[in-house]
């Protein structure tokens, strides 16, 4: 039962990563301005490149979750390595929230005249909030773990 649930959670983690990656590759192609551009200029847009760079902590965090699930499966949760994985998740989440805030500020300041970026900003606020919640939860878990070691 335990092994099955670990495999399930690992599969979900991988699925989240694949969906995020697919969305990130697909999304620039669907934007209005992409119609008149060749593939290279679509992806070499500075903001889109920033988006790819900013996704790195997300994928690192996901990988650490995967590793953590592996430790749980091997009965090694109460080990320094899983505390380390949680710490990395915490730092990734903090970095992610900062990167999203920077992106939101950029959109706020440089969006086209007459364009209303309220939706994008709202999404950025929610995403920032979620990242902070993850960081806090990871730090709480880390502290509980540390106490047990």
């Amino acid at each position, binding site marked *: *039962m335990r092994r099955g649930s670990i495999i*399930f959670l690992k599969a979900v983690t991988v699925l989240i990563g694949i969906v995020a990656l697919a969305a990130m590759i697909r999304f620039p192609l669907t934007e209005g301005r992409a119609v008149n551009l060749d593939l290279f200029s679509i992806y070499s847009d500075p903001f889109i490149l920033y988006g790819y760079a900013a996704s790195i902590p997300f994928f690192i965090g996901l990988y650490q979750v995967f590793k953590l699930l592996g430790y*749980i499966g091997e009965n090694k949760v109460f080990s320094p390595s899983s505390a380390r994985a949680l710490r990395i998740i915490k730092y990734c989440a903090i970095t992610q929230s900062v990167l999203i805030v920077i992106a939101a500020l950029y959109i706020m300041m440089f969006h086209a005249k007459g364009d209303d970026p309220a939706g994008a900003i709202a999404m950025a606020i929610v995403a920032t909030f979620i990242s*902070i*919640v993850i960081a806090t939860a990871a730090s709480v878990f880390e502290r509980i773990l540390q106490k047990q070691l």
Partner: protein
Amino acid sequence: MKQASTLFLKATLFVMGGLVLAFCIFAVPAISSGVGVEWPELAYLKYPILIAGYLTAIPFFIALYQAFKLLSYIDKNTAFSVASVKALKYIKYCGIAMSILYFAGMPILFQIADADDAPGLVLIGLALATAPLVVAVFAAVLQKLLQNAIDIKSENELTV
């Protein structure tokens, strides 16, 4: 510092609860009566949507309350106790119940998606239905871990 982080997580639980409460009060009745206005042939979905909407809210709020209790245990340094294992067990059951209810409600969503010609709606519904299941499995794993830790602890106390 520790108090602050659990306090923040507790506040997050309150925000989530408030959002869902607002959704229940404002959005669910609006959706249930709006479907009949938008697509008269789907008017018979009014009460199923209402019932399904409120029914799924019940396990959600129970799970939220248990998560709140769990954070209190962490605050009091009693995370490794039978009480928190129990809270996790309730969260597990609530997650399973929510997932079952969502999957049971999928036929409603199918008809709306069909009428609206929006197949993406079904995909979103599936994602929403799977999310509580993921939470349930995670809670089950945590429950097992905690139980093991408690068992080992009591064993040690017995031998010493």
